[in-house]
């Protein structure tokens, strides 16, 4: 269990987070929201005006009792934004730096498929390899909490997909709490068990990613949550399209290639809603999912409609459209969208 609360320079950070052991909280927000400050406070690299950090019953920081452990005495694994690998050391030396255990470091690198690259210097490694070394280094000292500061942002789009999958696997095995900060809501939704949206130093909403997308508490969150995510299994079909059998029923097609377990992302404003009993008509929208309305939330002239289509989904429509369709919780609708509106990433 990680508890952290901190108030730093006015406007920079005034937030509290709780992360149960074995889960990952993704803190998402635009740049300047205070995400990195939160990570630095927990790691002991930044002293807030007031604050408290507790990990597994141990107090790392308590401004009330003047407790403030230096970073080296907090068992805290950090993956930094640019990975911060020591350039004058090999991958193996980087990983063994904190643990003083070269055998264990070698085993960790082997687990990440980097045993053959362990004597390479960071600048000889690819972006994806550097990210894995940084992760191995953070895990080598058996941390009580794992902090990830934009770990994927330094990677190109192709590498990011596989790195996301690896990170998910690592976090699934991890028994300690972890906290990931990112400016990308889709990334937060893919990796975090829960998502907290940070804006102007404050957590403006926290919950499951689908919950946030369906019921944004403000127009800012509605904009920020952007993409919604659906999971399923993909296979290639004719005409260069990909067919995805969704978990919980239904299929959809995408113009993007994909195979095996995938996550499909699309934006709520790309989804059209029509009454469930509308006769099938000629349309260019290739995808039609039956869904039940779970929530209707008006945000600044727009209406975010939470849907249950076997998986949580959110659509965004105008207020007049919502009135005309009589949208209310429990109403059955059909959600339609074009194959080109979807993006497929490895799930």
């Amino acid at each position, binding site marked *: 269990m990680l508890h952290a609360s901190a108030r730093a320079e006015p406007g920079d950070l005034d937030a509290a987070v709780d992360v149960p052991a074995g889960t990952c909280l993704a803190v998402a927000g635009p740049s300047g929201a205070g995400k990195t400050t939160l990570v*630095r406070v927990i790691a002991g690299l930044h002293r807030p005006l007031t604050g408290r950090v507790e990990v597994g019953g141990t107090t790392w920081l308590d401004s009330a009792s003047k407790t403030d452990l230096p970073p080296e005495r907090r068992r805290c694994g950090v993956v930094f934004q640019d990975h*911060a690998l*020591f350039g004058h050391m090999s991958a193996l030396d980087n990983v063994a730096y*904190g643990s003083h255990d070269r055998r264990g470091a070698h085993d960790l690198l082997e687990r990440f498929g980097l045993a053959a690259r362990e004597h390479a210097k960071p600048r000889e490694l690819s972006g994806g390899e550097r990210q894995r070394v940084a992760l191995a280094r953070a895990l080598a000292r058996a941390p009580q909490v794992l902090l990830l500061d934009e770990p994927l942002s330094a990677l190109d789009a192709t590498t990011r997909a596989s790195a996301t999958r690896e990170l998910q696997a690592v976090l699934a095995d991890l028994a300690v709490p972890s906290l990931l900060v990112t400016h990308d809501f889709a990334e937060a939704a893919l990796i975090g068990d829960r998502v907290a949206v940070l804006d102007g130093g404050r957590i403006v909403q926290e919950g499951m990613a689908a919950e946030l997308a369906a019921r944004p508490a403000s127009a800012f969150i509605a904009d920020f949550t952007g993409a919604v995510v659906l999971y399923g299994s993909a296979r290639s079909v004719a005409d260069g399209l990909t067919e995805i059998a969704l978990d919980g029923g239904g299929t959809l097609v995408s113009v993007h290639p994909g195979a095996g377990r995938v996550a499909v992302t699309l934006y709520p404003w790309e989804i059209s809603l029509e009454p469930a009993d509308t006769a099938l008509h000629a349309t260019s929208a290739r995808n039609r999912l039956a869904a039940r309305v779970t929530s209707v939330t008006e945000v600044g002239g727009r209406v975010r409609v939470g849907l249950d289509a076997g998986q949580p989904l959110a659509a965004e429509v105008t207020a007049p459209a919502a009135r005309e369709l009589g949208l209310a919780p429990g109403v059955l609708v059909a959600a339609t969208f074009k194959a080109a509106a979807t993006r497929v990433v490895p799930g």
Partner: protein
Amino acid sequence: MSAVSPFRVVAAGALALLVAFLALPVVAIFVEQSPGELIGALDDPGALDALWLSLQTSLAAVVILVVVGTPAAWLLATRRFRGHALLVTVLELPLVLPPAVAGIALLACFSADGLLPTGNLLVLQTAGVIVALTFVAAPFYLRAAQAAFESVDRSWLDASRTLGAGEARTFARIAIPAALPGLIAGVALGWGRALGEFGATLMFAGSFRGITQTAPLAIYERFGTDFTGALALSAVLIVLSAALLLTVKSGVARLGTR
């Protein structure tokens, strides 16, 4: 084919002029006398004593600078406190002091009736030479070392701390290796300055053969009576300094490709 611009011609001319101006006097030392005469003139115990003393005292000054100056430069590079800029200026002062003023200042401080009397320990002693060399060479090393530490990636230092290393281990294992090329360049600058030091040494330690007469002082002593001997010593100093510069440059280049 593009025409060579007039500016390019002017710049090339300026470069040629500069190379001739800086290199010719150095070349002159070697061509003024035959190599045989130069080597023969070195067969003078006084000259060899002076060279040996120069090497010993400048090396001692550099060792003192590295041992004391490196952690000091680290502090200046990584901490911002009140009076930081003033402190840096004070440490840079010897850089702009005329050497004669530096010598007077050292006398005013360490002579028998000075601010910090040291008796016969320093004045007119070999130890005094080391003090004078350290005084004038310190800013060269400190500036280079501070700049080298300032350019070390802060996230490396943060990462080291979160990996369980305290400040001392972070300094030794991360900051020094990362700053090494800059530190070595600082050693070369400081050493070069110490090898050539003349005025402060003369005023503070005097010019006693075998005790305080370094190579530059010996050159000055021969200047009036034995011009060939002065040339020979100068030639040796040039070779020493050039070797120092080349060694450091190739060493830094090797570090860069590590």
